[in-house]
């Protein structure tokens, strides 16, 4: 039971971390660029922006710790790729909460209309 509890607590914290990781314009633009599909290097992601390589790296690490991007090595290069799973999971979570509301509000409706 307590292991289950730990798992669900960890999950909720993870949801919040994913929401929070996405709550930054620079990180959103990085996600936007990477969600196009192709893994990209830090140099590619820095190109055309006024943001320093160090800052981009820091933002990528935040996204990585939330599981939204992963770094992959090809030869000597380190590339970053987008992982849609955490965002899909958030949508499923909100879907479950919304489903509970549908149930209770259906009961409210029959109560007040009876």
């Amino acid at each position, binding site marked *: 039971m307590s292991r289950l509890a730990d798992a669900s607590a960890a999950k909720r*914290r993870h949801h*919040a971390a994913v929401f*929070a990781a996405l709550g930054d314009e620079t990180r959103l633009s990085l996600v936007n660029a990477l969600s196009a599909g192709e893994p990209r290097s830090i140099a590619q992601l820095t190109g055309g922006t006024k943001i320093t390589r160090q800052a981009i790296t820091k933002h990528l*690490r935040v996204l990585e710790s939330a599981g939204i991007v992963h770094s992959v090595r090809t030869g000597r290069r380190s590339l970053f790729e987008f992982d849609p799973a955490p965002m899909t999971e958030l949508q499923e979570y909100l879907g479950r909460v*919304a489903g509970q509301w549908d149930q209770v509000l259906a009961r409210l409706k029959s109560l007040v209309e009876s």
Partner: protein
Amino acid sequence: MNTSIEKRLELKAPVSRVWRALTDHREFGAWFGVKMDGPFVPGQPAEGQITYPGYEHVRLQTVVQKMEPERFFSFTWHPYALDPQVDYSKETPTLVEFRLQKIPTGTLLVVTESGFDKVPADRRAEAFRMNDSGWAEQLSNIARHVAAG
């Protein structure tokens, strides 16, 4: 991606009837599936025991925010707080709001739940601090982008 939940219902009942069903703690209990300890009072905690089959071990813990008769009722709580082993009081609550509006057929009820994006206080690292400018919109842009890709 939307970071809040919104439900709109047209109820064939007068606003006064819906208001009573929402804010009288016994009536609230009847449709929500909870036996409340006492009435809802703005600024005060309101707690009860869930009566819905399978969830009888769960305490419902809310803090009433605002009650504007026949117009607006809100409280904070911890969504999906179904696990008795977890101390939900340490986590950032979400905000539930009920808005009532008179329409020709009865009452339009709009229910929203928001605040799913808040990081629990004990995990609020500098790196996760967010800007508070309309990023829900940006998220939905991204979601569209992802769906299109």
